[in-house]
């Protein structure tokens, strides 16, 4: 296999507009070679359009696409060393599985395809089905055929357009691991488009969160989760509690803020908002980072922890954890996930409690943003 070290995918100033509608605002993106990269976002955010511009199935309104050193922006899809796994698999109904997988090889003029096709079918565990037609296979099997059909061509980049969307939960989990395994084994760059944030975080080395045609934040799943830079990312990946606070002073590497009569501490490095005294900041903390103590035991809480008082409005026992919703003067609906180790029987709706957490787990966001951006709404458009 050619070892082409300059195989980074580089999008420079890529944009796509349809008439007056901008699907993708000019964006720059570099996908390191050999990485598993995820484009994550809700439907309509522009992630599929971006993917299709890399594939050549959409012409960019502006900007360039580079694969390594080669500029491919104006090349039609059949001239790019890139293959796509489509959302609905797009298997050719009039050809059997063997011919489907062999399609790309044949179009490139390769004569003897038998060995390669058989090897590839073995790789995705479909050796027995070679002569069946697509409609005779299950959804999961079709999906593997789609992957095989793309991979057999040794593309520089494999593009996956929400390939697991049509599968049921268990199968999806299985395929996620499967794809990750294949990518590690094969070593090709995978660019995976999905709206499922768990999927993105499980599979990808790097995730780019997209919203309304722009990339909100790019980084490893851990970075994005633990230190979101925008409210959208904070709310879209998992759940966040966002508290409106005002900057009071700075103390060493920490910022001290006032909120609801109390003080909160936030490391300056974890604050992506401007921090002038008196300025507004959204202080964020994830629900699982918070400890819940009954108000009577408030004295036992360690020093140096951020603390808030409130009353339990709701509690749901999930099994693995208990999820609480707290009413607090500082923040209306505060969510806390308490791991189910020892259950305190006093923690029932109506109880007065103190919430506390390690300041190092706090992150800060620009208060000018929409506090509800990225929160899942009831009326979702069908993906």
């Amino acid at each position, binding site marked *: 296999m*050619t070892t082409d070290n300059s195989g980074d995918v580089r999008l420079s100033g890529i944009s796509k507009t349809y008439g007056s509608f901008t699907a993708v605002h000019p964006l720059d993106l570099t996908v390191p070679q050999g990485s598993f990269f995820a484009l994550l976002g809700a439907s309509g955010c522009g992630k599929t359009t971006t993917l299709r511009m890399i594939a050549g199935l959409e012409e960019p309104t502006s900007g360039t696409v580079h694969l390594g050193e080669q500029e491919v922006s104006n090349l*039609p899809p059949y001239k790019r060393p890139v293959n796509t796994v489509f959302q609905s698999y797009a298997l050719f109904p009039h050809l059997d599985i063997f011919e489907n997988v062999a399609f790309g090889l044949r179009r490139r003029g390769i004569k003897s395809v038998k060995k390669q096709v058989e090897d590839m079918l073995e790789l995705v565990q479909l050796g027995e089905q070679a002569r069946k037609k697509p409609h005779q296979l299950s959804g999961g099997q079709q999906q593997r055929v789609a992957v095989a059909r793309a991979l057999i061509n040794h593309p520089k980049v494999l593009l996956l357009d929400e390939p697991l969307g049509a599968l049921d939960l268990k199968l999806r989990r299985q395929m996620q691991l499967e794809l990750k395994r294949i990518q590690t084994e094969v070593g090709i760059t995978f660019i995976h488009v999905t709206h499922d944030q768990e999927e993105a975080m499980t599979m990808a080395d790097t995730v780019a969160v997209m919203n309304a045609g722009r990339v909100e934040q790019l980084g490893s799943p851990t970075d994005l989760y633990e230190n979101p830079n925008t409210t959208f990312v904070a709310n879209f990946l998992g759940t966040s509690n966002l508290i409106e606070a005002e900057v009071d002073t700075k103390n060493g590497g920490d910022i001290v803020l006032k909120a609801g009569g109390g003080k909160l501490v936030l490391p300056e490095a974890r604050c992506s908002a401007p921090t002038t005294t008196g300025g507004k900041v959204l202080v964020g903390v994830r629900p699982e980072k918070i400890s819940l103590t009954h108000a009577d035991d408030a004295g036992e809480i360690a020093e140096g922890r951020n603390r808030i008082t409130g009353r339990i409005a709701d509690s749901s026992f999930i099994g693995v954890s208990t999820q609480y919703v707290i009413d607090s003067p500082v923040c209306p609906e505060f969510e806390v996930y308490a791991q189910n180790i020892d259950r305190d029987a006093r923690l029932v709706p109506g109880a007065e409690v103190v919430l506390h957490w390690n300041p190092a787990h706090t992150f800060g966001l620009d208060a000018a943003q929409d506090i509800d951006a990225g929160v899942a709404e009831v009326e979702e458009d069908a993906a």
Partner: protein
Amino acid sequence: MAAVTEAPPLAPAPETKPPRKRGRLVPYWLLLPGILWLIVFFALPMIYQASTSVQTGSLEEGYKVTWHFATYWDALSEYWPQFLRSVAYAAAATVLCLVLGYPLAYLIAFRAGRWRNLIMILVIAPFFTSFLIRTLAWKTILADSGPVVSTLHTLHVLDLTNWLGWTSGDRVLATPLAVVCGLTYNFLPFMILPLYTSLERIDGRLHEAAGDLYAKPWTTFRKVTFPLSMPGVVSGTLLTFIPAAGDYVNAELLGSTDTRMIGNVIQTQFLRILDYPTAAALSFILMAAILLMVTIYIRKSGTEDLV
């Protein structure tokens, strides 16, 4: 991973090329031959016909465009009964086609199960048999001494239809009833196929949902199925009424001089009497009426569902 063949090297990318709009002219090249054919052999003749209708002259002297619009007036005043008759017969046939055809289309779409293909074949296959031969068969079916007419006679149905003016004497042949029968028969497939297409698109689960919401079968039909099948109904009506209005074969084979439709007149004028201006005028009136109907339809429903 089995490192098999390497991907063949791909062409080096061109230097700086402006983003090209790929194949923007392709659709026009695809359309050109067919549309040209239709323009020359469909649209253009219509214009020639309009021009002929305002010409005067004769076969010996030749024809010249004299803008002799009186031809229209003369034609209309002489042949308005045939126009009216054509509209009446075509309307009757269309209604009958709808009433008869809808159950069959519904049956094929929803109730046929594994018989669907067979029934479709039986609907379409007669198409392939010469319609003239089949129309002539009606002469046998509706023969004076045949079983059908005898039965109608015994049941006194003929008395009723005589009174309505649809038949006369004790005959069905050579009466309006026979012509309408023939028209209905000939144009049924043109009603059934669009209806079927429209019905087939309806999700069967809508019926279930309606039933779940307390609708009786007839109500479901009235409130859900029929409205959703409207595009097919309209399309089928257009494709039935219009050709039927201009038909002359049924009137000629199954009717009499009293049942002559406008199509018969045009045919006679064109092929026997050779009065081209009059024939062209009549034809133009018919065509104009139809264009008007189609235009109204297009205004209401757009052109995307037409073809």
